[in-house]
């Protein structure tokens, strides 16, 4: 910093520690709860230090039998979440790359109209068109399928804009060079444009993976068969069934921790790109 003020540095660290303590507390509590037995947790106040039941809780969460209002095992739910998140992420990135390429590098009739049509979808989050979208998916016979879970969430105005913005900054000389080398548009796209977009792709990967993994309202409506439940629905059902005392909170919290691991790992490991992606989408 510019001026040395030791008291201000101390204050800064104090604020950060306090902030981190408050922000991390709910997750710490879940972690602690998952190491105790169900009986220990329901005695108020629940213990704030780790217990000894950790292995049992996680074993029960992973391989336990239909005790928690759902007959589907956690492994299956994690798989559904993973496939959904991956299809949404890869699908969004792929179709956005293609459409941004078309909009930036070609001249064709109704180009502006296509551009605006994509832009307008920014204003139609799934929550505001929920009933009719449900009806469309039902009419197409896609309820309880991966296609139904992912397709309505794949279109992405944000990603298209991000790529368009980026393509506009790519020097024209590259296209000319590619032309002179005799490369066609798709060759240029594959060998020049996509490799150049690596950073944006990585950033979007993080953002869209989290988005896909955390979907709740949409799968809640369109999955009726338990083996198509993503894990966040499974957790909600675990804690919704019965009175509070009937819930095995240690198992529910162990499940919560397991369900948070993949998205948390993606965010932490790819922190740098994630931040870049967030800040870039501001434009």
């Amino acid at each position, binding site marked *: 910093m510019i001026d040395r003020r030791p008291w201000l540095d101390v204050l800064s660290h104090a604020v950060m520690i306090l902030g981190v303590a408050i922000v991390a*507390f709910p997750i710490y509590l879940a972690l602690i709860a998952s190491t105790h037995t169900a009986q220990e947790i329901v005695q108020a*106040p629940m213990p704030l230090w780790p217990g000894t039941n950790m292995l049992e809780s996680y074993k029960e969460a992973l391989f336990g039998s239909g005790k928690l209002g759902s007959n589907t095992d956690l492994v299956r739910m994690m798989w559904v979440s993973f496939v959904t998140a991956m299809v949404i992420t890869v699908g969004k990135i792929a179709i956005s790359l293609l459409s941004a390429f078309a909009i930036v590098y070609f*001249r064709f009739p109704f180009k502006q109209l296509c551009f605006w049509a994509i832009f307008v979808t920014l204003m139609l989050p799934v929550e*505001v068109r929920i009933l*009719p979208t449900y009806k469309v998916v039902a009419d197409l016979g896609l309820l309880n399928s991966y296609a139904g879970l992912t397709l309505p969430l794949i279109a992405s105005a944000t990603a298209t804009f991000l790529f368009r913005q980026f393509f506009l900054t790519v020097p024209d000389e590259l*296209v000319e060079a590619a032309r002179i080398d005799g490369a066609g548009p798709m060759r*240029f796209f594959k060998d020049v444009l996509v490799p150049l977009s690596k950073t944006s792709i990585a950033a979007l990967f993080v953002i869209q993976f989290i988005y896909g993994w955390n979907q709740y309202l949409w799968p809640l*409506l369109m999955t009726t068969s338990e083996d198509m439940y993503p894990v966040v629905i499974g957790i909600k059902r675990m804690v919704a069934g019965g009175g509070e005392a009937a819930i095995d909170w240690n198992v529910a919290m162990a499940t919560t921790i397991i369900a948070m691991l993949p998205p948390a790992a993606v965010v932490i490991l790819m922190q740098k790109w994630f931040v870049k992606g967030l800040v870039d989408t501001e434009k």
Partner: protein
Amino acid sequence: MEKRVLFRSAWLPWLLLLPQMAIIGVFFFWPAAQAILQSFQMEDAFGLSKEWVGFANFAQLFQDESYLESFYRTAIFSVLVAGVGIAISLALAIFADRIVRFAMVYKTLLIVPYAVAPVIAGVLWVFMFSPSLGVVSYFLERIGYSWNFLMNENQAMALIVMAAVWKQISYNFLFFLAGLQSIPKSLIEAASIDGAGPWRRFLNVQLPLLSPTTFFLLVINIVYAFFDTFGIIDATTHGGPGQSTTILVYKVYLDGFKALDLGGSAAQSVILMFIVIALTVVQFRYVEKKVQY
């Protein structure tokens, strides 16, 4: 803005646009058009008969006390979520910006909630604040504050605001930190030489330069409070007690899927659409002004 050098092909661009257009056509425009159409129709619960009723659904909504109340509660909820969230994140970012040692550790711990699903955030906060077994409610009782969000409307609102803010802090924090770090060091130094202390520099240099970021986050946070908090509410209060935490998006869901009032729910969707359009236009006009082509 357009490229100087373009590829020429009559069919290739269409082929490239086809997947995106097919998806937005089937899953965005068609349902949106249906919602608008339905909002002008009265339909019985089994979909057997439809009747064109003009603006009757809308008129009914605006006479419905519970809808107006839900509007009002949504406004309070989003202002609280945006206001409290932005204030806390700004404070954290200001102090994080000063720190060199351990900065990475703090940052990493602060961004974890971004990865947590809203509905899981709801579950975690219920676990802490449940009247019978929550740790925080236990200590609140101990200091003589009676806490039961299942009975008390204000406490229910407080709980969903806290959970929603908690979930959004990471996002706001990262934007503010990026904003602060992009302020040229020379400006801060100049202010220092002029004798401005840290507080003055914050008020007169950093804060004004952060105003675009703050405005952007305000819009984003309001949209977040409007739509993405569905999971939080569904996991904590279910819109209760009474109607006290039924915000607009939760009401669309309750009326459409639980009460099967299709016309009313569609009319609510259309109103929500207008709100999002208004917010997007505001944001876009502002962004256009800021970004120079």
